């Protein structure tokens, strides 16, 4: 228990280091296109961190992270488009909406595990996506919704994302280091045993769901005002697949894995796109290899190498 707390501290410090690098990057990269790429990878990093909390630390493999980003994006988008409500109210509304819906979903799937949980959340995600896509009278469906911007300069957006990501990492660290974090991991490792030891499984599973979906909703809302266009594309299962890829590649169940995975996968996918669209093939293969042979992902690999080097 002591070593895992230490490991978490190391992971947290590493993730702060990564964030510092990202924060300094615009000094070297002043092309708005590549800054945009980094911003989108930070969007994915938020989703990855949210899913990691739910799946990596609590053991609930939901297939709906992209769906909740879509819910967040549409909440603030529709509030702005239909009722001209400012983003300063829209974004908090997105967090609340995503969290509330997430809490309900979490309660519904309480007794489900493994493929059953995956199937139920997948159906939920698809139903939401189809519902939004079909209500073109209200949401403009597949045509996409134009959302007003929030900040003028791209660089300002860049630092907003860095700040939110840093805050999220910090909050996750504090949560996981606390007793709540222990409860979550106990639930992941053996739910029955945890319950028999007095852990309020119902409460903590729902809390994990709520926090995860609220964070996803926030990410979606920020992305909506950044790209100024939301469409049901945000909630596609393949988007969830991308998030899962990022977390598994980076290292599931660690604090730094999702962040590293998101950056690595998204940035290299943009770079590989030039080479000719093989990026998803490479990542899917990586996920299979890592899942099959080396569950701890690239972060786990790095740790092993560091330990060997230290020895």
């Amino acid at each position, binding site marked *: 228990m002591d070593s895992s707390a230490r490991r978490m501290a190391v992971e947290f410090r590493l993730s702060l280091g990564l964030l510092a690098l990202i924060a300094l990057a615009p000094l070297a990269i002043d092309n708005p296109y590549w800054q945009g790429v980094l911003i989108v990878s930070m969007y994915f990093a938020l989703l990855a961190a949210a899913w990691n909390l739910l799946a990596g630390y609590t053991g609930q493999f939901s297939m709906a992270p992209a769906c909740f980003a879509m819910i967040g994006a549409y909440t603030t988008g529709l509030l702005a488009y239909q009722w001209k409500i400012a983003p300063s109210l829209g974004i908090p509304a997105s967090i609340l909406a995503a969290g509330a819906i997430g809490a309900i979903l979490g309660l519904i799937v309480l007794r489900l595990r493994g493929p059953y949980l995956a199937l139920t959340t997948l159906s939920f995600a698809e139903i939401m996506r189809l519902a939004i896509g079909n209500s*073109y009278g209200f949401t403009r469906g597949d045509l996409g919704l134009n959302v007003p911007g929030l900040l003028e300069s791209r660089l300002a957006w860049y630092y907003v994302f860095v700040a939110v990501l840093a805050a999220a990492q910090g909050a996750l660290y504090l949560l996981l280091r606390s007793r709540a974090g222990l409860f979550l991991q106990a639930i992941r490792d053996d739910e029955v045993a945890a319950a028999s030891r007095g852990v309020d499984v119902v409460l903590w599973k729902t809390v994990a769901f709520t926090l995860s979906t609220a964070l996803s909703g926030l990410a979606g809302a920020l992305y909506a005002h950044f*790209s100024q*266009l939301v*469409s049901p594309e945000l909630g596609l299962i393949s988007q969830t697949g991308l998030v899962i890829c990022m977390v598994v590649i980076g290292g599931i169940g660690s604090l730094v894995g999702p962040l590293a995975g998101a950056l690595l996968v998204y940035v290299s996918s943009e770079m590989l796109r030039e080479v000719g669209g093989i990026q998803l093939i490479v990542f899917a293969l990586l996920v299979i290899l890592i899942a099959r042979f080396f569950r701890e992902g690239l972060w786990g690999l790095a740790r092993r190498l560091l330990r060997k080097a230290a020895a």
Partner: protein
Amino acid sequence: MNTLSRHWRLALAAAAGLSIAAHAADPIKIGISIAQSPPGSVVQGTQVKDGLEIIKDHVNKAGGVLGRTIELVYEDNQGVPEKGRAATEKLITRDKVVAVTGGHQSSVCLAEIEVAKRYNVPYVNTNCWSDDVRKKEYPQVFNPGNYNSRVGLAMAETIAAMGVKRVIAFVENTDYGIGQAKAVAEALKQKAPNVEYKYETLDRAGKDFTPAVLPLRADPPDMILTMLLPPAAYIVMNQLYEQGVAPSAKTWLYDGAGIADYPDFWQNVKEAGKYMLEFGLYHPQMKTPKLGLEVAKTYQQRTKNEPNRLIFQAADSLLLIVDAIKQAKGTDPNALIKALETMKFEGVRGEFRFSKEPGYKFHQWVDIPYVNFQLTEVNQPVSKSLLVQAPGIPLAVGKLQKPVK
């Protein structure tokens, strides 16, 4: 001292000359955002690309523009608005293109023009028909292609002349489909107010439309309109044919999306395309300017297919940008926009000026020529189809044929 400074002056002159030459050799980059993969209409994207390439080669062979060659930078928007937005951003911020064109799916255009406006880059709308693209009245956007209100009026006239009573339209769930359905509704109110008209939206990514088709078997309307792009268009046509709904002795099939001249039309619909009425923007029997005939010939040589309107619209899109650069004597965006607004353009389809009227006519070639024709045999090329209306040929619905059964 003198020789040194003379050497220096020579060196400077040489350096300056070299740099000017190097700069002059820089090609002019024009951004092209098209669909090259599903769910976008790949067939459309490919045809737009073919048309653009023909004009690009034509211009570069004649020495380029202002001494520089034209380079086309392509991005695949997959027919998805979000990807179109990202593609246009990429073209403008990373590739630094002087103009963006190629757009052929309305929902994508609507997302892309926002980006063009934000960065103040001229955007030439090649084939997005939705009136909304014009109604936004963005100064950067120019529309040499067709627009839904035009189709609405044309189709309403035909429907009125044919005397049908009940019309049902199948439209795709995009800005184009729904926009055109509404435009037809508006026009019908004027031209044929007694016609019973309703439209049903279908998912353009759908694979099976039998539930929508089956109810019509029991109660067939007089005419079915289709406003869909392939592949959904082909599936709908095949299923309408399979169930014996249209084209049939009772029910006409009238397509408003202009798909009859797509290269893969006949191989996908076969029997189902016979007797289909078509609203089109190009027919080989139309009067075409000399440049247009050249483009047609080149296209036929390169692809062994008959050309269609997409080729010509794409050609005109690029030609407009090239002419604007010539007139503006440079690539400054505001000068380009001014040039496009004021110039008289002679393209491959005819000559026109962009209108300045508000609403759906803004920066639009208002009097775009169109045709109505009917396919009377399977595998029939457009050139052999039955032309019932064209510029100069008044609508003659008496000639239209119906299947016998």
